[in-house]
């Protein structure tokens, strides 16, 4: 595994740049564990200070050190994005492979629900969740709810690949070797859908983080938890741009753009590496 990463960094420029970008953000987020300040407290520093040697990212109008504030915000946002991606991948892989491999009525029932989820308007539903749960809607619950909505498109993609695999001779060979349906799906077919899983996982992170930012900016999440979205919510609330506290908005936006570009480059590089055809070529086949 380590050797693969080393190879990728050495021979794939996209991967190297992606690693650097995402790595910087991750280190920055991890720094929050060593934070000297509690991010939920306000007026612990002089408000509205521009970036300086003392306050690298300046301070905001609520008297918080933006460096530590954003460090917590990115930790929470990344955790949130990863949770949504992992949970929704589990659902989409299970649904996609089951529907594709078993076919018949299983396929029809699963795809019926799949299409309902595709059609549902997610945004109003999330707002409804907020009104019902109010401050109970913490990051983890929101991640769970988003995961329940973030799988259907990808499940369809995975199903279409699995549908093709089902008619390949090696699948029938596996059946006549006495392998169970579970083993065929998760050992024979899963490697073929992994590139989709990775590509969609990162796309899904980008989607869920974007959605969280939107909800938070509008105030439809628990705004006391520091995330990228709530940071922007407070900045907007204090008319940061109007009063000239530009660093309150510009720095988080720059950092999130860095994160998204980094994630995108990682997907591109990883897809190339994990794609069964390029894997086969490296192994010396085909």
């Amino acid at each position, binding site marked *: 595994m380590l050797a693969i990463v080393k*190879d*990728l960094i*050495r*021979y*794939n420029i996209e991967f190297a740049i992606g690693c650097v970008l995402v790595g910087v953000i991750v280190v920055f987020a991890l720094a929050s564990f060593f934070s000297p300040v509690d991010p939920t407290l306000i007026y612990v520093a002089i408000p509205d200070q521009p970036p300086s040697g003392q306050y690298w990212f300046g301070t905001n109008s609520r008297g918080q050190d933006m460096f530590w504030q954003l460090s917590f915000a990115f930790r929470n946002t990344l955790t949130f994005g990863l949770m949504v991606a992992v949970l929704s991948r589990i659902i989409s892989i299970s649904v996609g492979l089951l529907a594709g491999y078993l076919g018949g009525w299983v396929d029809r029932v699963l795809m019926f629900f799949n299409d309902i989820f595709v059609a549902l308007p997610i945004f109003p539903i999330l707002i409804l969740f907020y009104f019902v749960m109010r401050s109970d809607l913490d990051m983890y619950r929101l991640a769970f709810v988003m995961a329940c909505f973030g799988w259907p498109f990808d499940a369809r993609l995975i199903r279409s690949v699995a549908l093709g695999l089902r008619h390949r001779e090696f699948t029938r060979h596996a059946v006549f070797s006495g392998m169970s349906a579970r083993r065929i799906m998760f050992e024979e077919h899963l490697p073929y859908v992994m590139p989709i899983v990775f590509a969609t996982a990162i796309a899904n992170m980008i989607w869920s983080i974007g959605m969280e930012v939107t909800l938070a900016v509008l105030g439809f999440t628990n705004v006391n938890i520091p995330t990228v979205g709530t940071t922007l919510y407070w900045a907007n609330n204090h008319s940061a741009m109007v009063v000239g506290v530009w660093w309150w908005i510009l720095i988080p936006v720059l950092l999130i753009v860095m994160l998204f570009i980094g994630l995108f480059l990682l997907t591109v590089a990883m897809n190339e*590496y994990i794609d069964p055809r*390029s894997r086969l*070529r*490296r192994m*010396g086949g085909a």
Partner: protein
Amino acid sequence: MAQSNDILTVKGLKAYYQMAYFGIEREVRAVDDVTLSIRKNEVYGIAGESSSGKTSLIKVLAAAIRPPLKVVDGSLTYRFGDIEIDPYKAKKEDVDAIRWKHLSYIMQGSMSVLNPVRRIKRSFEDFAFRPMGVPKKEFWERTEAHLRRLNLSPDILRAYPHELSGGMRQRVTIALATVCQPEFIIADEPTTALDVVVQKDVLAMIRDVQQQMGSSVVFVTHDMSVHANMADRIGIVYAGRLVEEGPTRTLFTAPKHPYTSHLVGSLPRIGDTSPKAALEGRPPNLADPPAGCRFHPRCPLAIDKCKTDVPPLVAVGESHRSACWRSDDVKPLATFGQPAEALS
């Protein structure tokens, strides 16, 4: 020596796949030092197994190679009338100018040539109109006359490919490849996907159109029984090298390479119940071929010399060349009708 009736002369041709994936560099010698010439008005069969390099060889001949396959060494010269051209040294426009008009292809799957959503007419126009270089009206007149000559109804021009049977589609691609009366046609396994009855008809059609036009055809297939009926001369390719070349009848009745001898001797035939031995081992990996003669690990006649020294392709009879240190000891494994001398 290039004779005046050679249409294609290939000398010391080497084409390799050069690849690098994440630090692993590989070089596959798909075409390794091939020298041959193809005469006017003949069908030259190229026989070889999968990954023997025969597909790479004809891609090189057709000047249709793409990286990672590269021509590393050697020359390739076509002579069409007074045009003399080496596609790997000439300008791209000059190479494009000979395509379809002088040099055309019949491919394995008809669907790769015929656009499935357009009428066959359109495919003819796309491929042949510009190379033929005549006004529209004359183009269609000539096309229809050509179809009639091949016993195809001009009505098929209005059909869509899916409305035709597989055999009919393959016939259409042959008509399409030959409509400009090219001097040189490359046919890559044109009948492998067809049923036996249709296969015979399509082969007869290719042979027929070749004789009418006096073109040269390079015919590639792994099926020796097809070569037996199509080729005037056959070149046997093994692991990227030409190992034997000679007139078809001679290769069947008096092969001078143990690989050829096995290929033709193990063909099952109706009416023949004698046991047919299989050749052990596997075709070599072209990325790491054995030293010396590449066939030696599987060869029943191999001696120590074969393991170290590469046998040159030398004349062993009239227009018959073989690359084997023990070519005199090769015996035919089966008989095919009467010997060549009795027939000629």
